[in-house]
């Protein structure tokens, strides 16, 4: 067994220990609290399975039909900081929910993009997808808080990408 497998098993065990602890705490407070939590957690899981599955399988096929030369040139492992910036811009421009962001990121990785570039992409997508800023955040917080947050977040995906490049992982 390699290190990653061991770590993965340890994390999996810890996660389920945490589930057990939380479930027990809820059950001690009240039976209804435990039932509600277990039901909602289970329901979310069942609803999410097909959604994630579609994205995961889809990313494989999308990667297979994407123009590999183009991806390698622009955001490939050799594209450096420029590729990181391009990937971050793509992340900001990606519309839609989690399934889109992760399916596109995974497809790019399978289709020849570099890991630092994909990290910059998912980080930018998480932090400042333009559509999310306008559809959600601007309605729920003071506009100047939203702009300030978006402005200070601009360098973060690039920092993340450069850090990944420097340490040579993943």
């Amino acid at each position, binding site marked *: 067994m390699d290190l990653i497998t061991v770590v993965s098993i340890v994390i999996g065990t810890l996660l389920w220990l945490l589930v057990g602890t939380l479930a027990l705490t809820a059950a001690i407070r009240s039976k209804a609290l435990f039932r509600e939590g277990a039901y909602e957690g289970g329901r979310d899981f069942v609803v999410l399975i097909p959604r994630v599955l579609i994205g995961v399988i889809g990313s494989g096929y999308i990667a297979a039909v994407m123009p590999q030369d183009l991806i390698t040139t622009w955001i490939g492992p050799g594209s450096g900081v420029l590729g990181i910036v391009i990937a971050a811009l793509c992340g900001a421009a990606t519309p839609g929910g989690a399934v889109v962001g992760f399916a596109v990121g995974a497809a790019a990785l399978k289709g020849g993009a570099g890991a630092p570039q994909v990290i910059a992409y998912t980080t930018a997508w998480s*932090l400042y997808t333009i559509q999310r800023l306008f559809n959600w955040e601007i309605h*729920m917080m003071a506009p100047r808080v939203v702009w300030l947050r978006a402005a200070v977040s601009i360098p973060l995906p690039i920092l993340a990408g450069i850090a990944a490049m420097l340490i040579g992982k993943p």
Partner: protein
Amino acid sequence: MAERRRRVRTFEWSTAVIALTSIVAGTIVYLRDGSDKALAILTSDLWLFTGMLPKMAAGCLIAAFVTRLLPREVVARVVGGESGFVGILVAMVMGAVLPGGPLTIYPVAGAFLLLGADIGTAVAFITAWNLLGYNRALIWELPFFGPEFVAWRIVIALPLPIIAGLLARAAARLVARRWGGDDQWT
């Protein structure tokens, strides 16, 4: 603040678009490269997905229980009362721990500001929720990218909420000095 976290909807446009794109892409692969290649892509991804299912389930259950055991009001009060660098660190931990969608997170961050926390704290919280939240990492990122990629991505992202919080604090001070106005960001 009484309303619960956003329920996971059963239908979503994003999923429909990705499904359609995948079907088109899958058909192209099948016609161009044959059924063996199309099947190979399907099974290789299915394997990763199946391996991640237990962690996804754990993620969903942890989120459901944490939502009930750690009310948003408590988080708002704990973080809202902190300030300085400690405030940013506390906000980062809370952002990583609190589950839920944007409907939960933005009002909590807004509540910090009302309760007297500074803008850096709110920004660190939102950044941590986006980048370090176990919810998204376990349920979404893991089946797509596998454990090694996700682990490194998170390690790399660890300092980012602190950087964002400090930058926001400095920027807010700069804005106040340059254009006047108070330090209120609520």
